[in-house]
């Protein structure tokens, strides 16, 4: 069947930021960011380059982690007041997703964000274009059609995608991720790996996405430990930015799966950071998906081979791959269970029903190669809480 592979124009390498900004055309640049990134001075740096080229610049730094609809609406309102023609998102996934969703409301205030699907045209780009500059190396949102927003009333994160949400331009500037602390470097790096692996087994997988995944898996295993070991290693930072971007291209065009359904729900109910949430889910979902599913096991075995695992039995290779991911996690100081991540037993038990309910409502679950019901999801969370490998 007909299919599409959409990616933005990507600029990387020495002087990527200045070179691209100097060539950008437009008049009114709306820089969307958050207070943390603002503190690093990145938006100011961008603003200076643009001012030198006769741009008017507004900076909006109110983005929140895991943005809510209300926050998106206030960003859209600010875009409107400024007659924005170019949106420049500088920040992590939360900032970039705020920008994407606010862009939609800026162009079409009547659109309900929850009702965005891949199906209908959004009719964007009448008023503005979107440039994304990531300051975390994980979500790859700068390269994706995806957006994740939270409902105000319930706190539920909903993920959706639409081809028009793919940014026009993604600028990869390693200097912007240099300040990322060890913990967030590890969490966001695991998000990238989860995107790559899930995209490879998703029911919508395709050759273009597969190619991106194969490179990502190699790069994350090589460069994530180096990024964490020396936070100032600019080469490692750049490689992780590229890996995250490739992983974004991969899953954006083939979707993520169960790990993200479990992860989004953890983010909604227990406010677990996204990379931590999906990273904890990843090895468990591999163990779940490879059981009695020889074709899926074979796909995991292909990825396992990239990191030196050679086993004749694909299911054993898949399980060894899950173990290898746990070793990678241990090497970068990533917790091995929800309990070790600091979630109290009471909070976990109190939240479990909601966790299951929201995971079932997450659309990525439909993309998983092996079916799972609410009972299975509950079990996954219980295993995740204690850090026990999945055996069902």
């Amino acid at each position, binding site marked *: *069947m*007909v*299919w599409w592979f959409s990616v933005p124009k990507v600029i990387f390498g020495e002087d990527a930021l200045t070179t691209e900004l100097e060539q950008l055309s437009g008049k009114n640049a709306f820089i969307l960011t958050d207070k943390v990134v603002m503190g690093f001075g990145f938006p100011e740096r961008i603003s200076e380059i643009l001012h030198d080229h006769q741009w008017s610049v507004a900076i909006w730094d109110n983005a929140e982690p895991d943005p809510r609809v209300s926050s998106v609406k206030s960003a859209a309102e600010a875009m409107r007041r400024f007659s924005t023609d170019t949106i420049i998102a500088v920040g992590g996934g939360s900032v970039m997703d705020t920008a994407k969703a606010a862009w939609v409301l800026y162009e079409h205030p009547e659109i*309900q964000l*929850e*009702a*965005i*699907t*891949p*199906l*209908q045209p959004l009719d964007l780009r009448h008023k503005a274009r979107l440039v994304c500059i990531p300051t975390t190396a994980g979500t790859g949102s700068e390269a994706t059609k995806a957006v994740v927003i939270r409902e105000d009333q319930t706190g539920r994160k*909903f993920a*959706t995608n639409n081809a028009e949400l793919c940014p026009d331009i993604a600028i990869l500037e390693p200097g912007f991720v240099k300040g990322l602390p060890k913990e967030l470097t590890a969490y966001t790096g695991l998000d990238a790996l989860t995107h790559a692996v899930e995209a490879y087994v998703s*029911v*919508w997988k395709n050759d273009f996405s597969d190619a991106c995944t194969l490179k990502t898996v190699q790069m994350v295993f090589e460069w994530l430990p180096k990024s964490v070991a020396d936070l100032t290693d600019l080469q490692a930072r750049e490689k992780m930015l590229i890996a995250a971007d490739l992983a974004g291209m991969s899953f954006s065009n083939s979707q993520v799966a169960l790990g993200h359904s479990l992860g989004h729900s953890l983010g909604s109910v227990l406010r677990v950071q996204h990379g931590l949430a999906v990273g904890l889910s990843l090895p468990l979902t591999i163990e779940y998906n490879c059981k009695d599913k020889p074709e899926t096991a074979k796909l995991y075995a292909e990825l396992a081979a990239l990191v030196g695992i050679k086993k004749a039995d694909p299911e054993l290779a898949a399980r060894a791959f899950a173990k290898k991911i746990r070793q990678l996690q241990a090497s970068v100081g990533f917790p091995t269970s929800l309990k070790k991540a600091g979630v109290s037993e009471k909070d976990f038990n109190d939240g479990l029903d909601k966790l299951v309910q929201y995971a*079932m*409502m997450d*659309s990525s*679950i*439909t993309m998983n190669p092996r*079916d799972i*019901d*609410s*009972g299975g999801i509950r079990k996954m969370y219980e295993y995740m809480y204690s850090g026990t490998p999945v055996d069902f």
Partner: protein
Amino acid sequence: MSEKKVDFFSEQWLKKYQEILNKNAAYKDAAKDWEGDFIFQIDADGSTVKEPARAYIDLWHGDCRKVALAAPGQKAAFEYSGPLKNWKLLLAGQIDPIKGLMARKFTLKGDMGKVMRYTKAAAELVATAVKIPTKFPDEK
């Protein structure tokens, strides 16, 4: 021996659909809070399908409460429609129901925000139709 084929969108086919859906534990689990009826439509194609064929399916909290052939003007909360050739591919498992929408082989009308919260249930609705040995109007 293989099961006898039933005519697509006949009363008998719809009864069979209802019976299988009501036994589908995965559907019941995924749709336990679902409220809303559906119309499935085979679009008219000017040759085999002269008039659009429409089926009404009432779904409530994981149960399929009612199935019936539907009149042209009859409304439901959701309407999923496509030409016969695409229904055949869908029922043969050769079209993924959501990909089919993206590729414009089918159209879906209704509250999209709601569908996005129940994609698993929606997938089971289609998976159920795949299980029925179906005889299509262009088959002898």
